[in-house]
């Protein structure tokens, strides 16, 4: 069975996107989808871990937690309760570039949700006691996700070695020392600098009338004053000209692992589409090159992946493998490098290119099944690409990638001299 390329009939219906910007700078992006009586609302603040001050790593994320600890008209934890009583679900997340708050709820509660989000944009009312407790909560999150699981500290080590200057050097969770240093004064300062309408985008997808949504948003957010000009990261990451290597130990990990990372251009760059296709050829599915060679044929690795992480600033490509017991991790890395070299010397066959495009089209459609899936991508287009309209044209950019493009981006970006390699050794192996 050789699959034909996904046809035009496989395109998802275009989203009808409406936009409005309030006088205070708040941008609103809305799309109607009446197929269920459900709305997903997201507030994107254009601030993430890369914007943190020196000595305050982890602060953007700690601050995200504090946004649930009370504002002028909403008591501590009451935000959650008011969403829940409406039959809605709610959460938030912090990335390197953005902090996003979202609710999915029955559509008749739209005004309540806008009111809730406006209240905490307009004011934050966190007591010292709640601040201290929430800091402990975040420290438990750090222990859970980074300090105790095997390979939990790997991403931290890789980023620290991959970036020399750019603030992607640290992960959003931050360090324990910096979390301990944060003060209530930092909280007020952060809110007034970044949690202002001119640094926020409201995304609404679902069972709504766009005009009505604009009217309600204006009613609740319109009175919030515009903030000062928002500071942006100016640091430049120097171009990498020589390979770098580090070896780190992990007391929890039972098997050797390696990550080879490479600098990439930012999200939305014209080359990003060919790079995603290259990642798909490398590791999506059991017929992908890394899986087939390392996991299936040679059985040297229990997992092998190649993946692009596109960010607003200098982005990164990871090749990652965990060795099977008794297998040489340096040998595995050299095999991964061979696979990259092959891709840089010869364009992929038409069949392989078609496969990667079909995989990307199918997962693109699947990811946008729910209102939340649609809003996630719409928000990304609006905030990181600066153009919500790209929601409806992104698939074409993948479809237009040629085999020669794939070869070119692998040769350009995944070149040996641009590599940072981090070997992770189980601490138990130290005695050897």
């Amino acid at each position, binding site marked *: *069975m050789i699959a*034909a390329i996904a046809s035009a009939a*496989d395109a998802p219906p275009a989203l009808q996107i409406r936009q409005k910007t309030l006088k205070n700078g708040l941008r609103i992006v809305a799309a109607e989808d009446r197929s269920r009586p459900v709305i997903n609302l997201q507030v994107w603040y254009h601030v993430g871990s890369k914007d943190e001050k020196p000595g305050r790593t982890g602060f953007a994320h700690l601050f995200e937690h504090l946004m649930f600890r*009370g504002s002028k008209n909403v008591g501590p934890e009451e935000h959650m309760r008011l969403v829940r009583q*409406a039959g809605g679900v709610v959460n938030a997340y912090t990335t390197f570039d953005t902090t996003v708050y979202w609710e999915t709820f029955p559509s008749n509660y739209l005004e309540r949700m806008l*009111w809730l989000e406006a209240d905490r944009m307009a004011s934050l009312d966190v007591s010292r006691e709640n601040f201290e407790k929430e800091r402990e909560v975040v420290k*438990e999150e750090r222990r859970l996700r980074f300090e*105790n699981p095997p390979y939990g500290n790997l991403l931290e080590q890789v980023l620290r070695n991959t970036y020399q200057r750019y603030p992607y050097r640290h992960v959003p969770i931050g360090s324990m020392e910096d979390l301990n240093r944060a003060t209530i004064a930092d909280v007020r300062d952060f809110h007034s600098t970044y949690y202002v309408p001119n640094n926020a985008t409201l995304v609404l997808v679902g069972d709504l009338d766009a005009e009505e949504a604009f009217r309600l948003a204006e009613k609740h957010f319109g009175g919030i004053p515009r903030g000062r000009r928002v500071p942006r990261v100016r640091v430049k990451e120097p171009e990498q000209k020589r390979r770098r290597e580090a070896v780190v130990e992990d007391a929890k990990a039972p098997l050797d692992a390696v990550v080879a990372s490479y600098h990439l251009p930012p999200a939305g760059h014209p080359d990003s589409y060919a790079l995603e296709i290259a990642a798909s050829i490398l590791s999506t599915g059991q017929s992908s090159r890394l899986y087939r060679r390392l996991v299936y044929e040679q*059985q040297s690795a*229990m997992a092998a992946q190649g993946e692009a992480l596109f960010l607003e600033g200098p982005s990164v490509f990871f090749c990652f493998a965990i060795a099977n017991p008794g297998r040489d991790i340096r040998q595995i890395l050299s095999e991964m490098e061979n696979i990259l070299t092959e891709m840089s010397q010869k364009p992929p066959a038409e069949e392989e290119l078609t496969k990667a495009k079909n995989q990307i089209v199918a997962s693109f459609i699947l990811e946008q099944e729910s209102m939340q899936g649609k809003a996630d991508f719409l928000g990304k287009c609006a905030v990181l690409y600066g153009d919500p309209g790209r929601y409806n044209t992104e698939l074409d950019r993948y479809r237009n990638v040629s085999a020669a493009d794939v070869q070119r981006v692998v040769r350009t970006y995944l070149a040996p001299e641009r590599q940072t390699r981090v070997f992770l050794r189980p601490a138990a192996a130290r005695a050897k």
Partner: protein
Amino acid sequence: MRATLLILAMMTSMTDHAQTANRVAPPPPAPPRPYEFPRAASRTLANGLRVFVIEDRRLPLVTASMQLLAGHAYAPPEKAGLAMMTAALLREGTKTRSSQQIARAVDGAGGRLEANAGNDVATISMTFLKSHADTGFELMADIVENPVFAPEELERQRQQALSGLQVQYASAQYLASAAAARNILGTHPYAWPGDGTPDTVAALQREDVVAFYERFYAPNRAWLVIAGDVSADEGFAQAEKWFGGWKKQGPADDPLPPAPEPEPRVLVIDMPTENQTQIAVGQPGVPRNHPDYIALQIGNQIFGGSFNSRLNMKLRANEGLTYGANSYFEPSRFAGIFEASTFTRTEKTADAIRMLVDLLKEFRENPATDEEFAEAKAFLNGSFAIATETAGSVASRVLTAEVHGLGSDYWQRYRERLEKTTRAEVESAVRRFLRPDRLAVTAVGNAKEFSRALEAFGPVRVIPAAELDLASPEMVKRKQ
């Protein structure tokens, strides 16, 4: 209204806050837009396969999911992992396609084809673009009906599974969950680890896999749901074309034993390098088709089923002990587990367990205030449309209703039954069910820092992680 101390404390602080801050109330809701759970057309094929089709034209996707009574509970403990291994090997080669040919066909179409096993059922599912749906059905039928279980593929999967277990056994989170099932259910068929253990996976033979497949994979033990960009007629035609010729009969669906009586006991798995302890406190639960299930679900919302639950408010919001604390029912067909779990820094382990157990005792005394009861019902009712938003989530609910024998109109009538449930029914269900004096406590972490303090909750057993054997009745490896 008899409010609990905890709830009173919470309400007081909120009231004070409101008075000082002169707060504005949130805007009221508009009238709700009605929503009906999508209807599934159903038909039984001549070979006994029960087929359901849910038409959903929103996206150009077709998904199909088959569940067969071939889950972990049908494998003996010394072969723990057999159901998972059997399912995993389905897509590693058939009579006419090698593992890599299947992979190329699935990947080439951008499709997904997956197989795995849970307590009761093995699940084989596929999602393909509409234009490639025929490919998806053909591959799915092939791996279900014609797997060959080649010896070299078994060895590959075994190595993958063993490496995977080696990593999992370094994770306190994984061990807490697997050990809690044993601590709560003892030697019940649902108690054994579905992934198997390093020893049982190493010992699996090809004959075990073939015998398991031959016995339990049969159309009369299976349900098939097709959902997405497909009409009922098209769906039934696909089912007939690809699965109608599957002539095989498996054994009748015999019941498994009920869960054991709860007993107080404390199991500590020692991992001295941890700085955080994983905690699970529980007792046997109820099967999914238990008449009290909805009432208990409402109760669980109040105790630990949401962010605002008593458990999370106390341990996370009020004490800052954890990033998360929650409770849940994990219901299978003939028994289940009720578990409350959390994690905290090592030095707070005993405190967190004490608070959790006290909250359970308090919960049995005072299961629900009027306010809590109304909120839990409002949430379960209101979130129903969200929880069934995608074609896949609708398909999975239809399968749940069928596999657990809940009745074919279960989801159509679910919110009506929820609304009819009274607070008194929730209270009596919680009191009948919950045994806070007979809890199984499981803690995984740096044992020497807290195991003595846990003697208050029952006889304590400490097992070093390296000596744990989840597939042996005693849970420890035999001394060599």
